[in-house]
């Protein structure tokens, strides 16, 4: 069957990619000169102490042994232990990830909705003033650095309309009384609204341009003329015959740009002091907390692979011509 075969192949490809990513992740951090132990500079860091530490961290074993140990612990879901607070890496990363994910989802929704709307309108009104305006806006926002958009959002939106500009939770919440679930959710949404908006604006431009050109191509197809001859009205032509075909490149683009979205998130979380995965990575770099860094990289890699896998399945669902 077309479906089962395809899913099996794609799953296999995704798993293979994960394995390669894990291996690269291991090699990359070992390729850096020195180790967590040689980097230590402290009064009581004697040779004996360092040797003991190497023993404890397993750094005195051969690369191959380290690799198999790494794989083994990964298979058990053990990402290692943080150098700084000695909690497990997963404990360190769980909360930031949970903070970042909803922000990313909302940002993606904002950018896709804005991008598709702008692109479709532009394509449909090609060459008119609204098309030119749209295209220029999209190009401009595409070209703007995300952190700069973030600063502008803080200046012109947050301060004017009273949105919080830092953190993820109102510190006064829950001091006087236990807040209701709704209050907590509303507070969370207020905090992630602006980072998500910033990221969404930073991304929408590219989507709008892609949707515009893809929609223009689709609207020039014979089946669109056929649809008009069949008596379909403009809206239905775009909705039933244009959009789905024009969306195909966008599905791939969103999946491919997921890595970029995460990178954008790192910068934006810094601007908004949003305690997400981006801020966690920055802190880990500051403190040379290699296990956390390594764990974060690995999880991000998994996320990118996962979303590409989802895009593949979606593409398959959307386009009956895709076989294997």
């Amino acid at each position, binding site marked *: 069957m077309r479906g089962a075969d395809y899913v099996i192949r794609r799953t296999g490809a995704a798993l293979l990619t994960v394995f390669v990513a894990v291996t690269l992740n291991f090699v990359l951090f070992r390729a850096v000169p020195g180790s967590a132990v040689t980097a230590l500079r402290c009064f009581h860091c004697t040779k004996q102490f360092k040797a003991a530490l190497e023993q404890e961290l397993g750094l005195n074993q051969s690369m191959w042994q380290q690799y198999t140990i790494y794989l083994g612990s990964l298979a058990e879901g053990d990402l290692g232990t943080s150098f700084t607070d000695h909690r497990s890496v997963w404990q360190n990363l769980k909360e930031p990830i949970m903070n970042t994910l909803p922000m990313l989802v909302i940002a993606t929704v904002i950018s896709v909705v804005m991008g598709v709307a702008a692109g479709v309108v532009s394509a449909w009104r090609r060459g008119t003033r609204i098309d030119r305006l749209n295209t220029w806006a999209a190009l401009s926002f595409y070209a703007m650095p995300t952190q700069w958009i973030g600063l502008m959002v803080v200046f012109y939106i947050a301060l004017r309309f009273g949105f919080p500009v830092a953190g993820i939770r109102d510190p006064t919440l829950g001091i006087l009384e236990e807040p209701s679930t709704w209050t907590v959710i509303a507070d969370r949404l207020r905090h992630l609204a602006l980072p998500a908006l910033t990221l969404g604006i930073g991304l929408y431009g590219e989507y709008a341009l892609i949707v515009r050109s893809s929609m223009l191509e689709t609207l020039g197809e*014979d*089946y669109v003329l056929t649809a*008009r*001859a069949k008596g379909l009205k403009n809206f239905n032509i775009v909705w039933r015959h244009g959009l*789905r075909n024009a969306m195909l490149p966008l599905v791939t683009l969103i999946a491919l740009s997921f890595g970029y979205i995460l990178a954008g998130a790192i910068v934006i979380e810094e601007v908004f002091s949003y305690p997400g995965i981006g801020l966690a990575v920055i802190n880990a770099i500051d403190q040379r907390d290699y296990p956390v860094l390594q764990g974060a990289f690995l999880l991000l890699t998994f996320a990118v692979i996962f979303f590409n896998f989802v895009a593949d399945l979606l593409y398959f669902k959307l386009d*009956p011509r895709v076989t294997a």
Partner: protein
Amino acid sequence: MSTRGPVLRVEDLHVWFDLPGGELHAVQGVSFELHAGERLGLVGESGCGKTTSILACIGLLPPNASVAGRVYLNDRDILEGGESTVAPHRWKDVAMVFQGAMNAFNPVKRIGDQIAEPMELHRTAKGRAARTRVVELFEMVGIAPERVDRYPHEFSGGMRQRAAIAMALACNPQVLLADEPTTALDVMVQAQILELLVQLSEELGLALVLVTHDLPVVAQTCGRAAVMYAGRMVEDGATTDLYHDPKHPYTRLLFSATPDLYAQEHIVSIPGVPPRLDRDIVGCPFQPRCDRAFAPCPTIAPPFVTVAPRHAAACHLNDVALERTQ
């Protein structure tokens, strides 16, 4: 031919395209009429305005085109009120088969659904009834009914064109406008599709306009042919009359430029190129290429008039012939 009036009557149709380089007068006063069950071949070189004319009839030209003239469907002018008067007739009364057999269907939707779409749109059938109708149409054009749920890429070129014809028949139209329906197909499939069109027009009393640059196709399919040149009608008459007794030099040269398997003569090409349509044409548009041009041709445009029973042409030579016989 029925005794009732024509199903489709086109009068003095003009089309201008507003292009960056200026205005292009693509169709310059085309008139023809078509009765139920009649098959008209619309022939001419590329760019002579054949496709533009039929797209204009049903209001399908792009926004940069302006149209003048009258198109009567059963004696009602459908272009009169613009989009609002022409839209209800699309597909319901006047359906089309396009050149791109490969691309007339949306690649991501099932063929059956796409055929049912106009029925639901024009409320001729819906749901299960529409599906029954699709199966019926499939049988009519010779496709196995179990293929209704297939996607376009699973059909061969010929089958896709059959399906396109089935789709055109979905709402029982009176007029079928076929724009080069066989160009993309190989000769065997081409013959089958033409045969199908002839058979359907006879069985259903369908008036057919077949746009093509392929004269043998017209000879094989249509009782009547109209020849277009530079946006104008130059000759209109029974196909046999046009072949044996052309009343316009262009028609004659067009036939001699067509390869014939049994003929002994050489193929003659017509020297020169058609005139530019973005500037006014003085005199007969064909005159610079005509082998029989004479005094009035460069200055006076010949009117499109009846020169014999059911035979019209636009050429000064016919006036001379007429004078001689008088």
